[in-house]
């Protein structure tokens, strides 16, 4: 058993899991099970949303540790399910390390993804369907559809100008959403500015961060839970600030 290769394999799989949006307890448990299945001795795993540390005892008794910084988090449920299934399979069948390594490396590329046009359709349809929940009528839903289309375009293709800073991105998108809703209602398409804006803002609300924070807290990962709660509060602040800017600009126009 080559403990260096095993360590690299485990860290890669753990990172993929964390980046696709898994809870911290799932990342830790998956890596731990994988190490145990391959007979790694003295396996220790520690993860927080931005970092993964895995430690093992090598054959000659030396402790080996690898730390990896986890980059930006997305939410990619299909990749998450694929990683989870692969981890179960590796633990059950225990193929040679080189083969397992190839399977893990192939995972992100072979995962099914929706085409950008389909994702954009999702971004447009979600606010349109959420509008009636907050008391909007047909015309409000239609304006929310247009706003959702524009905000979705910003979210999908705006990486170049907005950078990877999620606070700034949320702020700008929220500003665009509220300004556009105001303009569409003034143009006579929508009936109620508040309803249309709220419908579109549902695209940006920190539902993912909130749910993940709670799941981490339940599992006993207080650090991760707190850091994700902070993320949720930050996103909510970004939404409020952006919407305020959008409304302000709209009233001046």
């Amino acid at each position, binding site marked *: 058993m080559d403990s260096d290769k095993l360590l690299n394999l485990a860290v890669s799989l753990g990172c993929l899991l964390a980046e696709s949006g898994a809870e911290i307890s799932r990342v830790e448990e998956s890596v731990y099970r994988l190490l145990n299945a391959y007979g790694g001795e003295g396996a220790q795993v520690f993860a927080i949303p931005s970092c993964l540390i895995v430690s093992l005892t090598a054959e000659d008794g030396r402790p080996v540790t690898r730390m990896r910084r986890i980059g930006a988090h997305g939410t990619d*449920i299909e990749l998450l399910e694929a990683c989870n299934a692969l981890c179960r399979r590796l633990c059950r069948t225990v193929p040679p390390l080189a083969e397992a390594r190839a399977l893990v490396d192939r995972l992100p590329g072979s995962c099914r993804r929706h085409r950008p046009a389909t994702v954009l359709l999702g971004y447009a*349809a979600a606010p349109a*369907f959420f509008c009636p929940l907050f008391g909007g009528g047909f015309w409000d839903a239609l304006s929310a559809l247009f706003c959702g289309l524009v905000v979705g375009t910003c979210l999908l293709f705006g990486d170049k100008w907005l950078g990877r800073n999620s606070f700034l991105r949320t702020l700008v998108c929220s500003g665009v959403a509220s300004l556009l809703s105001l303009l569409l209602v003034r143009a006579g398409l929508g009936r109620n500015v508040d309803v249309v804006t709220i419908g579109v803002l*549902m695209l940006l609300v920190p539902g993912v961060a909130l749910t993940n924070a709670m799941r981490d807290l339940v599992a006993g990962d207080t650090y991760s839970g707190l850091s994700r709660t902070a993320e949720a509060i930050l996103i909510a602040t970004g939404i409020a600030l952006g919407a305020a800017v959008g409304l302000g600009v709209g009233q001046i126009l």
Partner: protein
Amino acid sequence: MELFFQYLLPCLCAFAGCIAFTLVFNIHGPGKLIAGCGGGLGWLVYLLVGRTILAGFFAALAISLFSEIMARIRRCPVTGYQLVALLPLVPGGGIYYAMRYCLEGDTERFLSTLLDTLGMAAALAVGVILASSLFRTAFPLLLRVRDAAGRRQP
């Protein structure tokens, strides 16, 4: 007819909205339907209990139980279904109205809306925490009971 506009239509909207969100979060296959049903179910509970913070708590409880059960059946991570189904309940409106009252200088309504928003977020959180903890404790027991019954029968 009243029943249709009061309960059925909003639930259908929540269902469709959640399905639209599955496109954004890259959920494929039966997961789409599960997430959508979770969203519809959550909104139904929210409406039936009466659109209060307590209703948010019960809705989060229902959604979490539903998605935990579905995830165990499909042997998949529960996160995807749960977070999509919870989205309609996240207080986006509260954030918006709090911001507006703050801008208008209406401190009283700003504070009450802010507290209401925080309360709703906390209710969702407590609902999720309670359901997940209950499920974590109860599920192994259920499995053991089923295994024991299975062993006795053949």
